């Protein structure tokens, strides 16, 4: 709002109409800015603030006198989180997860979208809905359903896989990431397919027509027109997936109830949650906020790297 006040005197020679337009423009944008501040900026500012503080007992004695005060901790919470090997261990796990899971999921999603966009499939609307359906199931419920498929005593097939390292096959330390990748792929492939499908349907039909007149086959149209034109959508889908992967939480949390060896810091998001819930040391809102912010920074860096690499490739 200060920009509005400052902008006026600088450009003195504004017509009456231009000034009116400016006021209307800001007026229309105001609800957005208010909501933006309320639901987006405020929580971020509050968690940044909270990450700089920690609770300390002050009363002395074995129980700190039952009183605690919030003391300014500077960057201590960040230093503690950034030097914690289990934080980076968690980041390593989700990155390993992403390196394999994202390409597979994006590949399948693109394939399905191309299939539905071609004229090979009857009733594409029905198929589109069916592929999208897993995404409509709440993530936690989906994770529980898959969890049941992985537990030998209940699962129709897990028994056949035996054990690995003293744990049921699907819940064993070397396998569990793949088990979770399977769950996420099942849930999010349909969602990413929709992103691609929307991009495909936005391609002007003239291009196909021109290509056909030039004698291009269906495969050539797919490879030379459709796929290059959905690059933007692919960028979006991969970026969303990278961020989602860094924040992996539902799947490992459900799996933890089945595989108690996982610990409370298996993924960075679990670490943030359990720090907040006092289930880890250090605990409390300050350290938890620091972990979350650090995690957001890692996700941001990865997203920028990917976007730059993509731009260079273009």
């Amino acid at each position, binding site marked *: 709002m200060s920009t509005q006040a400052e902008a006026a005197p600088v450009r003195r020679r504004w017509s009456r109409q231009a000034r009116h337009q400016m006021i209307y423009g800001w007026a229309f944008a105001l609800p957005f800015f208010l909501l933006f501040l309320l639901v987006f900026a405020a929580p971020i500012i509050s968690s940044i603030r909270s990450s700089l503080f920690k609770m300390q007992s002050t009363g002395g004695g074995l129980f700190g006198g*039952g009183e605690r005060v919030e003391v300014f901790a500077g960057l201590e919470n960040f230093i503690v989180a950034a030097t914690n090997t289990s934080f980076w261990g968690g980041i390593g796990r989700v990155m390993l997860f992403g390196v394999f899971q994202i390409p597979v999921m994006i590949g399948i999603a693109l394939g399905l979208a191309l299939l539905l966009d071609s004229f090979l499939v009857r009733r594409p609307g029905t198929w589109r809905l069916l592929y999208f359906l897993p995404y409509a199931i709440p993530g936690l419920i989906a994770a529980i359903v898959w969890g049941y498929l992985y537990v030998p005593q209940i699962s129709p097939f897990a028994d056949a896989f035996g054990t690995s390292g003293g744990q049921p096959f699907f819940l064993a330390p070397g396998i569990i990431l793949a088990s979770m990748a399977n769950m996420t792929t099942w849930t999010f492939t349909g969602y990413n397919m929709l992103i691609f499908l929307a991009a495909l349907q936005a391609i002007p039909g003239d291009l196909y027509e021109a290509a056909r007149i030039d004698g291009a086959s269906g495969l050539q149209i797919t490879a030379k027109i459709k796929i290059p034109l959905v690059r933007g959508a692919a960028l979006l889908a991969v970026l969303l997936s990278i961020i989602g992967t860094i924040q992996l939480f539902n799947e490992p949390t459900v799996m933890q109830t089945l595989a108690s060896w996982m610990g409370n810091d298996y993924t960075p998001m679990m670490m943030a949650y359990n720090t907040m819930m006092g289930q880890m040391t250090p605990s409390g809102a300050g350290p938890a906020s620091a972990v979350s912010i650090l995690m957001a920074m890692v996700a941001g860096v990865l997203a920028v790297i990917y976007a730059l690499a993509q731009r260079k490739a273009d």
Partner: protein
Amino acid sequence: MSVFPKRLMTVAGLLSAAALGLTACGGDATPADPTPAASSAEATSAETPSEPIDIEYMHRLPDGEGMTTVAEIVGRWNAENPNIQVKATKFDGKAQEMITKLETDINANNGVCLAQLGYAEVPEMFVKGLTMDVTAEAEKYKDNFGGAYGQMSVGGAVVGLPQDSGPLIYMYNETEFKALGIEVPTNAEEFVAAAKTAAAKGKYIADFEADEAQNWLSGQSAGAGAVWYSAVDDAWKVDAASDQSMVVANFWQELLDSKAALTHDRWSDAYTAALVDGTLIGNIAAAWEVGFALDPLDTTAYAGQWRVAQLPQFGDAPMTGPDGGSGVAVMKGCEYPAQAMKFNNWFNTQVEDLASQGLVPAAAEAAATPEKWSTQFGGQDVMAELVTANKNLNADFAYIPGFSAVGPKMTEAAAAAAAGSGKVADVFTAAQDASIAALKDAGLPVSEG
């Protein structure tokens, strides 16, 4: 169209948006400060106030089928005490989530007056400044309760009254034991020998429960006579990996190494499956498990064959340790602590009703064995056995603030021990390290020596 109405509409739109934002903020920001000091001073003078007051009570009792529900018990109180009206709310979720909810509510001046807290959580809540010191009120009711009364006191301040206790006991299938020709083990050596005999026939008299490691293994360590946390020169002394803990560690290590115990998580489907198919014929359990542990057997041939016995003796004397149990504490910001404690005392002495919830009441008056237990345990006077266990509780075993951060590390180590990639002793060294870290993180004095 003139410009004026348009502008008017914009302004109206703006105002309504701003109002929306303001009300959204106002919801949180209202300084709800009911000046508790003034009202409670007035109220404590008379325990039966002349004006009706409201007391909120949050619990996480099961309220299952066939139980006397909390609402029914509280309803009786409300009918008898028109001026002290209690509103009970059941919290559906994990204990830790209830703690977080209480903390958030109390810090927003919006907390309940009475809340169910696990004994291991009491010191933590006190340190966070979320409980109220009601020692004077509690002293009036002290004689109504057994040894668990001390579990609700933190550094000399009593914050509430105990509700139930969870001494570790041993549960076993008597018929199967007879068929195998083994006796109920009374000490660690007998236990290992019996376990090996049973395992040779494909039966297991014990299950190593990694997911319950926190209270289950610390309780067994307490049963061996260990005291994990004590005060030395006004600082905490942590002794989780003591010789007594190692007795328990070696006991389980031998059972695991000789494959004489199962390694299913307590809350896994594998556990229930082993119970139902008769592979698992005995288990070290918390007293509160008696209320529901055998439910899956009701329709099987094993119904009515199980019995309750004391925990095998790990130390010099028959002793057991605590695995759970909770009390009802008065929370900070409660306007009517005296009336709340009056209800607290009444509620927690309704032993028959509490027993119907599957609890082993902490009240001094013993409850009769509920009919359901009697049926499931072949007519045994289960409650008498549990009362004995209660008396044998290690009275010196107490918890530190931050114990909830210790458990997950124990579970992790126990799961590794169950899978064979770690040792049971690691569970206790993990507890030692995690305890010291938790105390330091809370800014409390620790003596390391």
